[in-house]
């Protein structure tokens, strides 16, 4: 079973939920927040790099090139500029679609590859896979895509999604059996939750909501969920103890035993 833990707003507790749920159920974690992966800060597994992530990039053979501009005209990302006797290539704009090589009539384009990220794996009591986007690279989705190839559907797979409602979050939840949307009971939390709900509904993925830091803010998130018929799976109260454990990188199910049971019950309810 694949469970994605997502949220519209950042910093509302996705990783907290993902890590605690994994520890309580023995699930494997896939940290799909490849821009800022945090799950292993709490798990402290010794990670090993298992793969590099490459994007295909054109390599131009200037001896064969006639500077006809067909490749530049085809490229919708404006990654190629053709000068009278040279080619300028902007790798950060290239999507790696391979179209330039197809349109080139002079066989002047080869495919090279450019490293944009890495995949890590490790295991102690919990198994974790993590993607990491290189600094300065814009495209997170190819890293997430490659990371997700390791997902084992037979066990319990928990995907820790990046924040926001953009392509990286959508790439993560694609193909999941269930999405947990984490939020906080504030106007910002509610606003971004509504966008996230629109998306999971559009993709027809069953979902429920967890309200973290319950007690701060107002009751508008609860009212919204009740009005929309959205199940509130769990409320995690705001507590100084939980916040301090978080700041030190300690999953709170390890210190506050009754929460382990609650996360097991959460999984039973989702299943």
């Amino acid at each position, binding site marked *: 079973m694949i469970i994605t833990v997502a949220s519209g707003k950042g910093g509302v507790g996705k990783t907290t939920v993902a890590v605690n749920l994994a520890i309580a159920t023995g699930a494997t974690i896939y940290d799909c927040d490849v821009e800022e992966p945090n799950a292993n800060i709490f798990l402290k597994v010794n990670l090993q790099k298992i793969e590099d992530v490459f994007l295909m990039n054109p390599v131009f053979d200037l001896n064969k090139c006639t500077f006809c501009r067909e490749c530049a005209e085809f490229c919708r990302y404006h990654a190629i500029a053709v000068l009278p006797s040279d080619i300028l290539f902007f790798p950060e704009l290239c999507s790696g679609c391979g179209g330039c090589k197809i349109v080139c009539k002079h066989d002047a384009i080869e495919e090279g590859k450019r490293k944009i990220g890495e995949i890590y794996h490790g295991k102690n009591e919990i198994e974790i896979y993590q993607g990491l986007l290189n600094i300065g690279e*814009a495209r997170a989705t190819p890293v997430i895509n490659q990371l997700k190839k390791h997902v084992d559907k037979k066990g319990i797979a928990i995907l820790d999604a990046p924040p926001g409602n953009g392509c990286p979050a959508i790439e993560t939840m694609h193909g999941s059996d269930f999405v947990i949307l984490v939020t906080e009971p504030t106007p910002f939390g509610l606003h971004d939750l509504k966008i996230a709900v629109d998306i999971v509904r559009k993709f027809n993925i069953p979902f429920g909501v967890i309200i973290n830091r319950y007690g701060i803010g107002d009751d508008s998130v609860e009212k919204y969920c009740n009005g929309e018929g959205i199940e509130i799976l769990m409320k995690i109260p705001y507590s100084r103890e939980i916040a301090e454990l978080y700041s030190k990188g300690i999953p709170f199910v390890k210190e506050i035993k009754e929460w382990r049971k609650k996360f097991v019950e959460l999984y039973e309810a989702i299943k």
Partner: protein
Amino acid sequence: MKQIVVASGKGGTGKTSIVASFASLTKAVFTDCDVDAPNLHLILKPEIIEKIPYEGMEVAEINEEECIKCGACQKACRFGAIENFMVTEEKCEGCGVCMLVCPVNAIEMKKRVNGYVHVANTRFGEFVYGLLIPGEEASGKLVALVRQKAKEIAERKDKNLIIIDAPAGIGCPVIASLSGTDLAVIIAEPTMAAIHDMERILEVAEHFKVKAVVCINKYDINEEMTKKIEEYCRERGIEIIGKIPFNRKFTEAMVKGKNIVEYDKELADLMKEIWKKVEDMISQK
């Protein structure tokens, strides 16, 4: 004209609350570049004067009647966006390779509206924000459009400052928010996760040659971690422009649709000191 971006790497560290408070302290054009989960408008309460549709990348569309199900497009698509002779729109990157390889011209690239740029007036002045339609892609380009619009307005209104509320992360929309700015104010939090993320966003700022300073929010939830941030910054010559305590008044203000400068006198004084430092840094440049 100067541009300041407020970023953090990690989400939820207080970027938007801090940007909203700056709105009370300076005359600038404000922008929200967190286009897939914008929040600044909830505090600034804009009166929209212009809503500009944004067309991102085109999306492939297969004409079922003309399709001969040869599979050439599926084979050529690097993004796995075509399955069973149908396009999964969220996966389509709009490259046009499928249209190129289709032997019977059954594929067209369709334009569509991915989001909007809103130009608005607020009680603090001009405000430009983007909003991506839920589930749409290419947010980096929408960010670029928001910034371009803000620049036009700043020029027209004779304002020499733009303040940008950036999204979380370090990828495409963050790079689009940060590149070419004069100063990045990085909002950190004294938690292990936020320190890790701060280090990565600082590297991104360095990569794009943007000067960065750090502001520590909720510094008193773990003073030991706060010291670690201070040490990290001192070693690298990164200035810390302020430390904000954890205070429920920030959430209370947000619930009331106000910024902290409007809501609490004591915290307003602290924000003024922080803003003063930002202003000094910008004028030094």
